[in-house]
């Protein structure tokens, strides 16, 4: 079996274990060891052994095995974890680190582990306080015939050359960093508010400089959290290929933009929705070869997954050249399932019709296959994307194919919002949920049935009062109605507010109970002036 694809993972996972081993040895020695820590030590050595054996690194496996055995004796209370054991284990961990570095550097070095293995196997605790005076004590050994890990490094003085360029950092440290940065940005806005009130030029200058530095800090902190799209994209060719084979379709699958980097939190969250969209594309989007031939299309269907950067967003697109979707059919099906009223159906544009596929309970699949029958539906896909602070749009042309477009922020915790005022309450709307802001002249509003509508991009969009939806008194008094265009249940609508306050970056804080369970609230934030605002989860507000 060709093990080379697993090499990098072996190296990184082994190093993780070794770091844990070193930390645990020290901890157990200092705190007279909890059972839990000793178990963890044993497991780490055990895992290392298993991996090394799989890779065919006999000596690493052997040394780990002996460390594991020694730990097992400690666990079984045949031995007491004393300083002698700690020294031996640390020596072993150091030697293992050297050997793994050899693997990483593709150095074919011979490391003599025999002596250390001997001492691990034969370890006896030093007797009495004079311990080392005991001539037969194996743990003492003869210094001259023992190579320390440092000695083994001769000829490789630049071992740290590569290693010192990178460090491994726990993800929670990164999360703390971004949290602190977020708090700093909130505080900056506070300072700016104070500055405005004081009209002090030196203070203004200082806050401008602070803003610049914070922006740099924010960028750097974000960079640390970024990992390439390939981290998840590399698994998709396999998913597509296997499914295509299963359903008897021929697919050419392309992935572009593997090097595009995204916040790891977002990237991890994207895996399931993308898998689902790709499966849908193979299962429902593409036609069977016969059908394609009949339409004069190439027998091979094409599916393309592409990621690209657009300003402070990442756009991920899945497109296929399959049968596409028929808006009329989608609308008819939604009406039949009573998901929309016939009247609303008549008013729907094609792009709204495509979004119907994301309403819970909607599925046009003629039969439930074992592919689409399992796991998440498009409604879950969409809500996952929204939870990540992104949005989904669908384009499709009958007979030509469909395109699913995911727009995602580069980071989760700090987002751009449109601040609006309703009655006396300020509310934050994520910019990703705002397609456009409009100040609408009242005479451009007209009625269709019972619904007030206005024309926007050639479509008649319903007008809804956000005040009314949220149960706040409304006072839309002026000549111009401030509103923003957003999407509700697959339909574009104009949501009227009392006043636009402006656009701002805010640091999102999750809500505690019971607020967290309220529909339509996506978090909270503190503004620069100390005011607390809720972040509106537009898609779920109705």
């Amino acid at each position: 079996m060709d093990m080379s694809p697993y090499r990098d993972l072996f190296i990184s996972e082994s190093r993780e274990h070794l770091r844990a081993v070193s930390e645990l040895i020290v901890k157990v020695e200092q705190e007279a060891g909890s059972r839990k820590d000793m178990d963890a030590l044993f497991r780490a050595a055990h895992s290392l052994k298993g991996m090394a054996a799989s890779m065919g690194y006999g000596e690493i496996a052997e040394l780990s095995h002996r460390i594991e055995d020694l730990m097992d004796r400690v666990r079984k209370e045949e031995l007491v974890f004393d300083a002698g054991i700690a020294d031996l284990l640390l020596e072993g961990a150091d030697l293992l680190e050297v050997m793994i570095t050899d693997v990483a550097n593709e150095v074919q070095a011979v490391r003599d582990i025999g002596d250390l293995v001997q001492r691990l196997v034969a370890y006896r605790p030093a007797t009495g306080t004079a311990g080392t005076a005991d001539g037969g004590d194996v743990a003492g050994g003869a210094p001259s015939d023992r190579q320390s890990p440092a000695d083994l490094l001769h000829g490789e003085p630049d071992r740290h050359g590569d290693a010192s360029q990178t460090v491994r950092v726990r993800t929670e440290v990164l999360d703390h960093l971004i949290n602190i940065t977020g708090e700093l940005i909130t505080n900056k806005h506070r300072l700016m508010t104070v500055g405005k009130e004081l009209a002090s030029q030196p203070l203004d200058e200082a806050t401008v400089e602070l803003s610049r530095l914070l922006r740099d800090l924010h960028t750097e902190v974000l960079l640390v959290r970024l990992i390439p799209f390939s981290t998840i994209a590399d698994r998709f060719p396999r998913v597509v290929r296997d499914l295509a084979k299963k359903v008897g379709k021929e697919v050419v699958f392309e992935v572009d933009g593997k090097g595009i980097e995204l916040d790891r939190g977002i990237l991890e969250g994207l895996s399931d929705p993308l898998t689902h969209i790709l499966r849908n594309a193979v299962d429902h989007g593409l036609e069977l070869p016969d059908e394609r031939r009949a339409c004069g299309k190439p027998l091979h269907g094409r599916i393309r997954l592409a990621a690209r950067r657009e300003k402070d967003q990442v756009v991920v697109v899945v497109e296929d050249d399959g049968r596409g979707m028929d808006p009329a059919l989608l609308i008819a099906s939604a009406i039949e399932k009573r998901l929309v009223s016939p009247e609303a159906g008549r008013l729907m544009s094609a792009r709204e019709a495509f979004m119907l596929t994301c309403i819970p309970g909607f599925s046009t699949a003629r039969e439930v296959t074992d592919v689409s029958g399992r796991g998440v539906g498009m409604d879950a896909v969409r809500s996952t994307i929204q939870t990540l602070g992104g949005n989904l749009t669908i384009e499709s042309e009958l007979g030509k194919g469909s395109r699913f477009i995911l727009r995602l922020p580069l980071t989760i915790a700090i987002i751009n919002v449109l601040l609006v005022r309703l009655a006396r309450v300020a509310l934050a709307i994520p910019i990703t949920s705002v397609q456009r802001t409009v100040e609408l002249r009242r005479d451009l509003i007209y009625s269709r049935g019972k619904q007030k509508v206005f024309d926007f991009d050639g479509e008649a969009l319903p007008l809804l009062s956000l005040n009314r939806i949220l149960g706040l008194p409304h006072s839309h008094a002026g000549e111009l109605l401030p509103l923003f265009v957003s999407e509700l249940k697959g339909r574009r609508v104009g949501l009227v507010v009392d006043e636009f306050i402006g656009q701002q970056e805010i640091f999102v804080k999750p809500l505690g109970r019971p607020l967290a369970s309220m529909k339509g609230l996506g978090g909270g934030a503190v503004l620069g002036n100390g005011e607390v605002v809720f972040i509106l989860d537009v898609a779920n507000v109705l």
Partner: protein
Amino acid sequence: MGLTVLLVDDSLFMRNMLRGILEGEGYEIVAEAVDGMDAVRKYREFRPDVTTMDIVMPVKNGIEALREIRILDAKACVVMCSAVGQESLVNAAHEAGACDFIIKPFNPERVREVIKRVAGA
């Protein structure tokens, strides 16, 4: 064709390797779990045809997880993955209702053979 498999191992390396071997045989890996507790949860959610279960894991070990899974589903087919020299654990696993055993380090041939056998049963 298309038997579903749940992989349980605390090592990503091991999971990836098993995934490589099993996907090559046309099995569908429906989920992966990183410890015994995760395994029980994923089992309940996915009801896989076959589960491969590492024994030495944090939080809850493979044998405890196996017991809980068998309570959930008396017909659960769970193949234990153990290292050489864990005979006592193998016995315990057997008593807890393990279908079969794979010895680590994985021999792809042996893995294929065992999964094929238990899947056919």
